[in-house]
């Protein structure tokens, strides 16, 4: 899939490119609004990531142009201006999502996936993990037709996030940012991920041992899926 990254902070744009390329996206970078505007007019993209704080261009104008020339593209606004006002304005103009800086790259990927699923109505997203059938669309887990209904929303969020970034170790910080990120909180080291993982394992163990949910010592957790 083609991604246009419009970001004037070169270092950040490069990191975005590295990360997304790693996830098999084809990336193009624009460091300013003028070139971005030209590219949008000429090429077709699946994703357009727009930084609102461009020095030469109003990001919202770019968004309008993108909607005009690339109506199929998913537009995600990236900004350090986290004002509510911008948020509403951005969404009204047809941005598909909005990520306030600083954001986790994993979070960006997860949002891109979520929008793709929503927008293109992908076929049932079923993952088989050692007998557990995880349905990312319906958010259910079944074990040979028996539903594992003791799993809470938060716990499912964790599993889905790990599946989305399968075979990669996710740190506790990355996981807790995903499930508690929007909460403004006084703790800087609150890590209840271990407790959540413990609960998940306990609940799944009733059916079978979830060996696929691995603890990577000292680093975090990962879900192993052999393709």
């Amino acid at each position, binding site marked *: 899939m083609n991604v246009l990254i419009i970001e004037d*902070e070169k270092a950040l744009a490069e990191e975005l490119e590295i990360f997304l390329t790693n996830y098999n996206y084809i990336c193009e970078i624009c460091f300013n609004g003028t070139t971005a505007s030209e590219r949008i007019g000429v090429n077709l993209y699946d994703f357009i990531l727009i930084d609102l704080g461009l020095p030469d261009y109003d990001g919202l104008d770019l968004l309008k142009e993108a909607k005009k020339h690339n109506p199929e593209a998913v537009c995600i606004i990236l900004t350090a201006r986290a004002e509510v006002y911008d948020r509403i304005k951005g969404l009204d103009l047809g941005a598909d999502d909005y990520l306030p800086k600083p954001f986790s790259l994993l979070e960006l990927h997860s949002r891109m996936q979520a929008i793709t699923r929503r927008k293109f109505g992908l076929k049932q997203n079923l993952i088989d993990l050692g007998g557990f059938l995880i349905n990312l669309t319906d958010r259910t887990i079944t074990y040979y037709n028996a539903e594992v209904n003791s799993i809470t*929303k938060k716990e499912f969020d964790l599993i889905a996030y790990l599946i989305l970034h399968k075979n990669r170790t996710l740190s506790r*910080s990355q996981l807790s940012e995903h499930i508690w990120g929007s909460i403004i*909180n006084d703790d800087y080291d609150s890590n209840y991920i271990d407790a959540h993982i413990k609960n998940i394992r306990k609940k799944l163990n009733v059916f079978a041992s979830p060996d696929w949910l691995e603890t990577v010592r000292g680093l975090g957790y990962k879900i192993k899926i052999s393709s």
Partner: protein
Amino acid sequence: MKLKTKLTLFNALSKLVIVTIFVMLLPALIKNINQNYTDNKLRKQKDKLLRIINIQGIKNYSDASYYTPLKEDYVSIGVDSSTEVLDTIKNEKRLIQGDTIEYRILSHNFNAESKKYLMEIAISVDAITETTRPLQNIAFQVLLGMILLTIMADQFYSTYVLRPLGLIIKTKLIGHKFPNFGSYDKVKTSTSDFEYLDISIYKMIETIESTFQKEREFISNASHELMTPISILQSKIENMFEQEDIADELKTRLLEMQKILNRLKSITKTLLLISQIENEQFLKEDSIPLAELIQEVYDEISIRLQDKNISFETTIPADWQLVKVNKFLLFNLFFNLINNAIKYNKEDGEINVVGLYQNDIFSVSINDTGIGIGAEQLPFIFNRFKKFRQSLTQDSFGLGLPIVKSIAEFHEMKIEVTSEKDTGSSFKIIFPAGLVNLDS
């Protein structure tokens, strides 16, 4: 007590004291005046009589007494046998036709036709003093009237002259949430002191306001500007962490960096949030049942309760509906309060969230059985970056309660904190009128 009341009271009291003193002195004064007047009159009569005797000769008058039928005054002339020279005015009693009457008597002896005579001119004391009482009454009434008049005049004038002060207090001081002062309306006054006061208050508030504004702008700009570099750093660390060829030992260190970066991120985000709240950049358009909001907080936080085996109980009427609020902010308010209740609690402790409705006021209390807050620290707990309570298991940066305070103020809610060391704390959120509706 208000200045005007004080002034009026003082005026009235001081006048009353003066009048009382005057009225008390009045009998003595009148007596004195009367006596002088009478004495003068007696002397004039004496002179007149002497002149008459001189012209007409003593014969016609020797050994004679004249008095009016009512015996209010009399004149007598008789031969004087004593040798002493008399010329006195005294109060004495005389027996006249069987009545003993007190007179003011002028006694004067004189020689006429080689004989010595004694002349007495007298006016009865009753006649003299009979005017005293009416005079006293009149004086008292006139004074009273005058005093009432001056009190009224004082009252009127002090009301007039103090009106600008009242206006300054009413429009500049009462009901103004510092530092939101708004525009400056000059208070009309011809009193230069008030003019000075008015302009001074305005200037002071203006200074405070601009300082506040600068601080807010600074925090807002600084936290915004910090977001981009933090974002770059975070992305770099995340990308490095994903690289397969990096040794686990290095990854552990990357994680430490990530943790520290998270801390920086949290602080910056929190400061930005506070500045956004203070700049009123949030909308208040949500409605949500309070019980539901607390339930949402519970869902997020239950894992932390579990970790310390803390029991959590809520008693909130299901029909309490919060209206015209910002749900995101209120969620964060309750999250932080309940998070604190957990953080500073003991193992196997308790947390109660109780909704109260008393005297038309809705409130909700979050009570814990934790380590409590010392009385000496209580006034400072809402200050930024103050860390008084050493939490038992976690680190924090002292912005939890400042967020709570900002959000509460944004919604015009009040917070009352009561706490006892080693026993627990209670944070009571008092909702303003109209924020809670009963959903029927």
